[in-house]
C-alpha cells in the first residue's frame, strides 16, 4: 500500500524562469521525507509536481515504479492516489467535520464510510466534533481535520505543505510528534515541505535541503548536520561559523584554535586555503586551556548557554556550554577544540 517515490532529474520552468532544476531523490515505502529550504527555493513546486497539479518540464516522477509525470504526459491528480494537506487546510466550509473527512470516500459503501470516518476522527483525537463546522474549530483542530480527510481514502503517498506554519510553537511540536506516530503506525509514505529545521529534524527520516531550485543534499538529519555536502548546507543547517585554515597534510588542517585531524575534500593538497566549519558543540569550555576568548554575547537556553566568543585573531565563534558555567560579558574564558567531524571547504 505504501508507495515508493522516485524523482529523476526533474525540472520545472515557468516561462523563462527555471524554478526547479535537475532534482533527483528516492524515498522508500513507509519513510517520511522532507524538503527543507528557505522560501522561494522551489520546495512547494516539487510537492505540486508530485501531486500532479503542475506538469514537469523535464525529468520523470515515478510512483511505485510507474511513471506518473513526464514532459508532455501527466497522470491527473485525481488518479494518483496521492493525499495532500494544504497550508491553509482548504476545508470545505459548507460541510461538517464528518462531511469533510468523508469527502474522498464517495465511492465507498455507506457503512464502511461511516466506520472509516469514526476511525480517523479517533486517530486524530477529534471524537465528538463530527457535527461541527470548520469555522467553529481552532487552528489545530482544523489541521487535524485536514489530515484526517487526506488520510481517509488510504492514499499511497501523503504530501504535506507547511502543515504547521499557522500554529503556535507548542502545538507545532506536539502535533509534529503525533503526526509522525500516526504515519508510522499506518505505514504511510509521506513527504513534508517546510522551512523550519526543527520540524524537519523531528518528523523526517530523510531530508532534502533545497536552494534556488536545486537539491543540495538528500540525507538523514545527522549527516546533514555533521557531514554537510556543501557550503550552503553547512550554513543553513544548525549553527556555526567558518574559520580560515590551511591544509598541513592529507589528514590535518591547522586553524587558529589548533590542529584538526580528519578527512576533508581531496582536491586540496598541502598549503591549500580552506574554511572550516566550527559548530557550537565543537568548542568546549576548558579553564586549563591557554587559549582565551572574550565573551561578547550570551544566550541562556535553559540547560546550556550559547556564548558568542571573540577569538584572539578577531574572528567570532560560538560555543554551547552547560549553563552552570555562567560567565559575564567581557570575561575571557578558556576554550578548547573538540571536533569529531572535520568539515572543510576550499576557499
Amino acid at each position, binding site marked *: 500500500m505504501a508507495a515508493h517515490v522516485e524523482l529523476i532529474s526533474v525540472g520545472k520552468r515557468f516561462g523563462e524562469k527555471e524554478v526547479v532544476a535537475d532534482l533527483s531523490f528516492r524515498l522508500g515505502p513507509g519513510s517520511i521525507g522532507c524538503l527543507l529550504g528557505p522560501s522561494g527555493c522551489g520546495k512547494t513546486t516539487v510537492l505540486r509536481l508530485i501531486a500532479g497539479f503542475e506538469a514537469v518540464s523535464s525529468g520523470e516522477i515515478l510512483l511505485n515504479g510507474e511513471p506518473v509525470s513526464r514532459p508532455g*504526459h501527466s497522470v491527473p491528480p485525481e488518479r494518483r492516489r496521492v493525499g495532500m494537506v494544504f497550508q*491553509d487546510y482548504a476545508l470545505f466550509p459548507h460541510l461538517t467535520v464528518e462531511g469533510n473527512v468523508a469527502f474522498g470516500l464517495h*465511492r465507498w459503501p455507506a457503512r464502511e464510510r461511516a466506520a472509516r470516518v469514526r476511525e480517523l476522527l479517533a486517530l486524530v483525537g477529534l471524537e465528538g466534533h463530527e457535527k461541527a463546522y470548520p469555522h467553529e474549530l481552532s487552528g489545530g483542530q482544523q489541521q487535524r481535520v485536514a489530515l484526517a480527510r487526506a488520510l481517509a481514502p488510504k492514499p499511497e503517498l501523503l504530501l504535506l505543505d507547511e502543515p504547521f506554519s499557522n500554529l503556535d510553537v507548542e502545538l507545532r511540536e506536539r502535533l509534529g510528534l503525533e503526526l509522525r506516530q500516526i504515519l508510522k503506525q499506518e505505514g504511510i509514505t509521506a513527504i513534508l515541505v517546510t522551512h523550519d529545521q526543527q520540524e524537519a529534524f523531528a518528523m523526517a527520516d530523510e531530508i532534502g535541503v533545497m536552494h534556488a531550485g536545486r537539491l543540495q543534499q538528500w540525507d538523514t538529519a545527522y549527516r546533514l548536520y555533521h557531514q554537510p555536502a556543501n557550503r550552503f548546507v553547512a550554513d543553513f543547517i544548525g549553527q556555526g561559523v567558518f574559520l580560515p585554515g590551511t591544509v598541513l597534510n592529507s589528514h590535518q588542517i591547522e586553524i587558529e584554535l589548533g590542529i584538526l585531524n580528519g578527512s576533508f575534500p581531496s582536491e586540496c593538497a598541502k598549503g591549500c586555503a580552506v574554511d572550516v566549519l566550527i559548530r557550537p558543540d565543537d568548542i568546549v569550555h576548558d579553564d586549563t586551556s591557554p587559549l582565551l576568548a572574550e565573551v561578547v554575547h550570551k544566550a541562556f537556553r535553559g540547560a546550556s548557554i550559547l556564548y558568542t566568543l571573540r577569538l584572539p585573531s578577531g574572528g567570532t565563534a560560538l560555543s554551547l556550554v552547560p549553563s552552570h558555567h555562567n560567565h559575564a560579558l567581557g570575561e575571557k574564558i578558556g576554550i578548547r577544540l573538540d571536533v569529531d567531524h572535520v568539515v572543510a571547504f576550499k576557499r
Partner: protein
Amino acid sequence: MSAHALPERKAPSGAFAFFRERGPLSAWRLFTFTLCVLVAIPLLVVASSLLHPDRETWRHLADNVLPELIRHTLLLTLGVSVTAGILGTGLAWLTAVCDFPGRRFFSWSLMLPLALPAYVTGFVLVGLLDFTGPIATLLRQWFGPEVRLPPIRSGGGAALALTLALYPYVYLLARHAFLSQGKRALEVGQSLGLSRRQGFLRIALPLARPWIAGGVALVAMETLADFGTVAVFNYDTFTTGIYKAWYSLFSLPAAAQLASLLILFVFVVLFLEQRLRAGMRYTPTGRSAGRERLVLTGFGRLAAPLFCGAVLTVAFIVPVGQLLWWALGVAAQDLDLRYWAYLGRSLLLAGMAATLITATALLLAYARRQQRGALTDAMVRFATLGYAVPGAVLAIGIYLPIAWFDRLYIGLMGELFGREAGPLLAGTLLAMLSAYLVRFLAVAHEPLAAALQRITPSMDEAARSLGLCSRQLIQRVHLPLLKGGVVTAMILVFVDVMKEMPITLMTRTFGWDTLATRIFEMTSEGEWERAALPAVALLVAGLVPVILLTRQTER
C-alpha cells in the same frame, strides 16, 4: 528509465473538458470576448455618431447648457453617492454590529426600498412636499400664506429621492462586511485604547472600505444613468441633455457626444472603485467573529431605533402609503383583468431575464477564475459596463444593430429564397433579453464573483487530490458554496428588470405592456394618481423577492 509504457493521459470527460482548456483561444476567452462584443455594440453605435459630429448643435450646447449639465451631474452624483454611502453604512453598522430594541425588524425592513423605483419615490415626494401638496397646504392654513417648505423640485429634491431609493445597495454590502468582521475590529480597537467611535472610524470602516466602495459605485452608476427621477424634478443632467439633443434638437451626433462624455464620468467612477477595492479579501477567517453584539445604552438605545424608523418611514412607509391612497382612489375605474396580464408579463420577463443573466454572469465569473490575467480582468470589467449607460441610450444602441441585422436578414431571405420574411429579431423576446443582459450583467456578476472567490484554489486541489473529477468538483463543492450568490444575483436582477422602463418601452413586442410601461404612460400625462395603481402592483410583486433577499443576507 522505466520499462512500462506511460499510461496515455485520459482526456477529461464531458463538457467540462472544454472548460479546462487554458490556452489563448480557450472557450473561456471566446465566451468573455463575445460578451464584450455584445456590450460594445451599443456603446460603439453611440460612439460611431461621433464620426460625423454636429458642430453647430455642439457649440450651442457647449455655450449654453454644458457647464450647467456638468455641474449638476457632478453635484447630483457626488451628493447622492456620499449621502447614500453614509446613510447605508451607518444603518448597516447599527443593524450588523449593535443591538437595540427593534434591531431584528430593521435588519430586514431597511432593505424594502429596493422594491420602489426611484422615480416613484420622486413623484411621491413632489406630490407630498410641493407647494400644492397636503403638507405645505396644511402649514399655510395654520401659519399663514408666507410659510414655505424648502423647494422640493430642485437638485436637493432629486438627490433626496435618489438617496432614499438607492441606499439599500450600500446597506446590503456594508452589512455583509460588518457582519463578518465588525465586532472583531471593535475589540482590536478597544485593546488599543480606542473609544467605540474611534474603533469604528479607524478600524472597522477602513476594513469594510472595499465593500462600501462597491455599493457606492453601484449608487453612482445608477445616478449617472437615471432619467426618470431627474425628469420628475426637472433637474438638468447629462441624461436630460442627451434626450434634448436627440429628440428636441434632432441631432443624434450631439446626443452621442454627450453620451460619450457621460461614459467618461462612468470610467472615472469605476476607476475610483477599483482603487478602493484593492484590499478585498473574501476567504473566510479562521475563527468566526464573536456572536455577541454591542449593546447600546442610554441615548444610543433611543436614538438608534428612532433613526432607523425615520429612514424607513421616509423611504418606504410614506411613499407606499401615498401610493396606496392614490391607488385606492382610482382602483374602481382602472383596475381590471388587464392588470393580471401586466403583472404576469412583468413577472415572466423578470424571471426569464433573471435566469439568463445569472447564468451568464456565473459563466463570466468562472471565466475570470479559470483564465486569470490582466486581459481577462479588463474584458470582464468591460462586459459589465452596460450598467452605467442610461437605459434609453442603451435601448437605441441595441435597437439600431437589431434593425440593421433584420434588414440584412430580410434582404437575404428575399434574394436567396424569394421569400417575404418578417423581421427576425426586432420586437422579439431575444432583443429585449439581450438589452437586459447588457444592462444588468454587472448586478448579477458582483455577488457571484464574491461567492466564487470564497472557493479557494486549494479547495479545488484538495478535492482533486481526493479523487474527484471536474464534474464532481463542481457538483459537490462549487454549487453548494455558490448557492447563496446565485440566489442573491437572481433576486437583484429580478427586481431591477421589473422596475426597468426605457428599454422595455423601446424593445417590447406589440401589446406586451408591463407594469413599468403602464406607470410611464400615466406619468407622461401627469396623471400621478393613476400611475399609483401599477406602481403599487409593481411594489407588491417586487416585495417578495426583496424579502427573500433579506433572508439570504442574514446568513
